[in-house]
């Protein structure tokens, strides 16, 4: 039994082409500038005005672009390959191009590893840093706990903390933003 029937199936309640053509002829003979007819599975729009129904142009070609999808929270790719024999986590503090419009001069301190974020060494004490704190590259700013192992996070930049992004007990993935820091102005940047 023929499975694929190339011509349009008669089992739908939709108008036939002949009926549509008849309707179109009627409308065309009339005085209407615009017609918009919608039914489930069917829509007819006509206009005497060019561009009356401009819609988003469909993609010219179905093939995917060569660009990979933009990751939701990826750090900027490092230019140099990271040595594979460096298992010790080190915090990354990188200017993040994609947030440039929001806070062009801020530096982000990101999680060096997946784990649980803690802003203080123990529950009863003060946080390592707060908004307004000044940090140097080797300042410990937080702890990321992985399987009961406490990994101190160093600022790896110097400046003033302007935002604490993560909260105590948060699961943070690698690369997730923990703090934003207004960096010290480097001497060669003064002249900008």
């Amino acid at each position, binding site marked *: *039994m*023929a*499975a*694929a*029937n*190339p*011509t*349009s*199936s*008669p*089992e*739908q*309640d*939709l108008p036939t082409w002949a009926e549509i053509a008849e309707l179109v002829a009627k409308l065309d003979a009339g005085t209407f500038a615009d017609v918009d007819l919608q039914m*489930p*599975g069917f829509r007819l729009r006509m206009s005497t005005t060019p561009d009356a129904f401009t819609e988003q142009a*469909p*993609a010219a*070609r*179905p*093939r*995917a672009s060569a660009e990979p999808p933009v990751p939701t929270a990826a750090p900027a790719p490092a230019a140099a390959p990271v040595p594979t024999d460096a298992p010790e986590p080190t915090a990354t503090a990188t200017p993040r191009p994609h947030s440039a419009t929001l806070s062009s001069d801020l530096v982000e301190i990101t999680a060096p590893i997946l784990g649980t974020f803690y802003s203080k060494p123990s529950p009863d004490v003060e946080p390592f840093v707060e908004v307004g704190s000044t940090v140097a590259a080797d300042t410990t700013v937080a702890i990321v706990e992985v399987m009961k192992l406490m990994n101190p996070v160093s600022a790896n930049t110097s400046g003033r903390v302007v935002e604490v992004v993560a909260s105590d007990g948060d699961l943070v993935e690698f690369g997730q933003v923990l703090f934003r820091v207004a960096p010290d102005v480097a001497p060669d940047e003064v002249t900008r």
Partner: protein
Amino acid sequence: MTAVLIANRGEIAVRVVAACRRLGLTPVVAVSDADRDSLAAQLADRAICVGPAPAPSSYLRAELMVEAALATGATLLHPGYGFLSEQPALAEACEDNGIAFVGPRPDSLRAVGDKASARAVAEKAGVPVAPGAVVLDETSAVRAAREIGFPLLVKAVHGGGGRGITLVRDESELVKVLPVAAAEAQAGFGNGALYLERFYAAARHVEVQVFGDGEGGVAVLGERDCSVQRRHQKLIEECPAPGLSLATRDLLRTSAARLVEQLRYRGAGTVEFVLDTESTADPQTIVFLEMNARIQVEHPVTEEAYGVDLVAAQLRLALGEPHGLPDDPPEPAVHVLECRLNAEDPYAGFRPAPGRITRVTFPRGPGIRIESHVYEGYLLPPYYDSLLGKVIVRARNRVEAIDAMLAAVRATEINGVTTTAPLHEFVLAHPDFRASAVETRWLDTVWPPASASGTVSKGHAA
């Protein structure tokens, strides 16, 4: 390099491209204006635009296809299924122009091309046929009907694809239906001839995959059950056909083989039977339904069950080589299912839902095969059928195959169009289907499920 003109579109055009690649042939695909960006066009070595989008101006014009083959230097022409695939005119035009038509000879196409002659050939070959008769007028119809018995089917002799068939319960209904059916047959198929046939209320659709060498030799590659149908349109197919006795299988296969031998049939074909599930004899009652003289949509279930490439075999035969299929292969130790995913709304009368595909994810993994022509960004054109693709799953037995298929359908994501996936999930999870083969009228008794259609009505009113 030998070039093959693919005179078709959609998933079967992609499938033929794959078979060409397997044999090192050069695939050239004939496209309509709407299919210039089709996947087949992308995968083939060349696409040639033969006409505008409507099929009557492109895919249904034999002379354009032959012209396209000649223009591109193709020496083979594969017609796919549907469209011109069973038109003797195309096969003849190929012959006349030195192009090898990848299909049966024109005389075979004619012999099985309408119900009356197909039935005659089957009877001659000793294939069981249903009680029935061609009728010329009301008098002959009533006389024939009394002999056949009610209920019976009124069919257009030149109909196909499940169209042009009316069920009639008694004589008064028959008298009313006859003129209408004749007029519809005239309008739909260009010929008002009608045929009455015994109606089997509890029937399964079982078909045999055959492959003839053109000289009377025949390879028989088992049965498929295609009983999950909606208004004679197949939705799920499987191989082997479940629950058949050895004697019934043997009757099906020898009947099919006899028909192929009788025709000295060339290439891939399917002999379709109605199996009367109310018959308690062994073998069960089977009657010849029709012969499809082409590759079929559901050919992959046989391929996966038997480990063969039917389309490559078609091409090999057309090249003048041995087709390479086993004449009498061992029974498969696997069970294979196929689900056809259509761009239709199964909750709204299966209304076609063409549109732009925004996202496609097909399932992966062992035993899963996908045959599809859709991709992300593809605009499913409104001119042709609504098939989006076929999910084929192979597992060690029927239950495992059903479970694997259910998971595969659930893991299939085709966004941008409405699909029939919910129907497939429903059937695959249904106890009736899981227990055994169903009857051809089964689906209409369970779909749409009462709750679902209620929900949808509300949705439309909102």
